[in-house]
């Protein structure tokens, strides 16, 4: 089960398991981001390489206008995945 929800504050909350089958759903939310934005991972249990790909695509698109994503509240496993992928140097992670 996965959900990507944009809150009133503009923060995006991810929950559940972000795998290849959820890419389309996630894209519908992430493609609407046009400015710097926080993505809260507090309720996300798992992310696959497909999920990482969507985040990278979003970050690259935003960087064209000087904007960026800030990723918050990752669990240890997801933080490790980001390190393995070298994403800890191309995303701001809190």
């Amino acid at each position: 089960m996965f959900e990507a929800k944009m809150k009133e504050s503009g923060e995006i909350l991810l929950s559940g398991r972000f795998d290849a089958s959820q890419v389309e759903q996630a894209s519908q939310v992430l493609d609407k981001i046009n400015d710097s934005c926080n993505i809260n991972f507090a309720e996300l249990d798992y992310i696959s390489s497909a999920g990482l790909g969507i985040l990278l695509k979003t970050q690259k698109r935003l960087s064209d206008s000087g904007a960026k994503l800030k990723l918050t509240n990752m669990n240890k496993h997801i933080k490790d995945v980001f390190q393995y992928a070298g994403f800890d140097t191309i995303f701001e992670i809190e």
Partner: protein
Amino acid sequence: MVKYSKESASDISIDIAKKNSTLVVTMIDFDVDPFDLTKAKEVDVKAHLEDRKVGGLGIHLTKQMVDKIDYEYKNRQSKITFMLNLENKNV
């Protein structure tokens, strides 16, 4: 296998076993063309954002997380074996 071997309608065989302190996961895809993931091009994870390409991370992450990967191809069967030493690992 599920995403990239669409030409095959066969089920994929997955076997998970523990041999001494090693977790061995074997996946077999039937009636497919070969793809040796052990020879896949490496992703440059140190590249700057503007040079990073989308894609290729699945194989990279797998290589980071397991201790050994074997690939065999015979009679249109593609067999991938992952091995992970469970000692001192929080799995």
